[in-house]
């Protein structure tokens, strides 16, 4: 049996929390699936000399990063996890530290940091 049509209830905009949570979720997904391998390669394997000699050479990496798809990927990879952090950090301040005042300021500081990080990422990727 098909689900009957929902009652219409038109009104103003949805809660901004919906956008924050969506960005948080997307960032958590990106970090969960893609960060371990990036940290393993860049943070550990490179330093310990486990990579092939020219794997991180300037020319090769520049060539790779200049591809439009690579730029899109890197933009998502760097920016979304910042929103993941912003969301969790904001609720940590409220629930774990028990700070309930200044909710608007705390939210602005957390998501604002992520927005600045995203802007910087786009700026760097455009310049490369």
């Amino acid at each position: 049996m098909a689900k009957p049509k929902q009652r219409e209830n038109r009104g103003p905009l949805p809660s901004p929390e919906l956008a924050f949570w969506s960005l948080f979720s997307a960032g958590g997904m990106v970090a969960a699936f893609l960060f371990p391998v990036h940290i393993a390669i860049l943070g550990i394997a490179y330093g310990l000399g486990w990579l092939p000699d020219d794997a991180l050479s300037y020319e090769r990496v520049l060539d790779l990063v200049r591809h439009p798809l690579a730029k899109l990927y890197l933009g998502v990879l760097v920016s979304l996890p910042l929103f993941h952090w912003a969301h969790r950090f904001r609720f940590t301040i409220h629930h774990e530290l028990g700070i309930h005042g200044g909710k608007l300021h705390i939210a602005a500081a957390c998501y604002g940091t992520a927005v600045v990080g995203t802007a910087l990422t786009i700026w760097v990727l455009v310049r490369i």
Partner: protein
Amino acid sequence: MAEERMALKVARWRPGHVPVPYYDEYEVPYREDMVVLDALNHIKDDIDGSLAYRWSCRMGVCGSCGMMVNGEPRLTCATFLREFRPEPVVVEPLQHFPVVRDLVVDMSDFMEKLKEVKPWIIREDEKPAEEGEYLQTPEEIDVYKQFSMCINCMLCYSACPVYGQDPDFLGPAAIALAHRYNLDSRDQGRAERKDVLEVDWGIWDCTFVGECTVVCPKDVDPAGAIQRSKVAAATGMLRSVVWPFSGPKVRTGAGRRYPVHVPKMPRAWWLKTAPYRRFVARELTSVFVAAWSVILLLFLFALSRGPEAYEAFLRWLGLPAIIALSAVTLGAVVYHTGTWLRLTAHVLAVRFLGKAVPGPIKVGALVVALIVASAVVAYFHVWW
């Protein structure tokens, strides 16, 4: 053989008598099949008739005998004394609720919230009774049945630190019940419930601690219901952006209309129990996630400034201290990945051939996806 006995420490609070809660210690005869409620009944009948507590069915159906047993919210009719022997059992009123007397708490806050989510079937227009009932297939019942098993025992509210911190929070049971009706094929009230669900003090206040689901005696899974409501809100929004001509519109802005109690939580509540500690560890992995975003940003910045800056950055990455920090970061991020995959599997309600896909299979599929994604990234990053 001498009769075995068991000690109980019971929290007492009587308005007007003693200014603060205190504890009375009792000794009751012990049998292996005794539950905490049996011990309380023995105290009430034979030792101290002034002890106040709620109970009714003694079989986990009425939901009235929930109390803190050794610091955990439990149904006392389903909690055996033998679980704690030989240590004494500490019985306290459910936390996060105002106490009326001894072990009796005031749950009127929940009763108000329950009304708000309209936990009944809402129809646009009722068809006349002569036209018969609204039929459902077994599959349609299966979709919401789990969320309909709630007995309003309040264990989930007592386990929820968000409710303890923020009494405005709509809370696990109320949201699970709203979700139950939203999932019902006979119901048309999703848009009406949005006003109380998709708001700051509704689903968005939940941080998925997950303890509500752990303590639930009826396997209702309120945590899953709340996260699925979030996913439904997000996909509904996405759908209305892509195709704005149909579907319910979100309406927000209504405020709470009744007073709530003042919570008394210890400052470091998140250190109190192992599940809370794991939860905070999970939340703090996000700091390492953000740190690695910054490292990646610096990497790209160095790359954009030319070969010298890039080489200098690579030398910095090769410092032993930085490698050690990267290893710590990797550990934290892998912890994030583990918890995230588990939670994602919990939230995704995947059905295959009319049956819900079991959790371990969902986790397995996500792990395969993780391995494939990592292999693809490694290939492009290192060998391509």
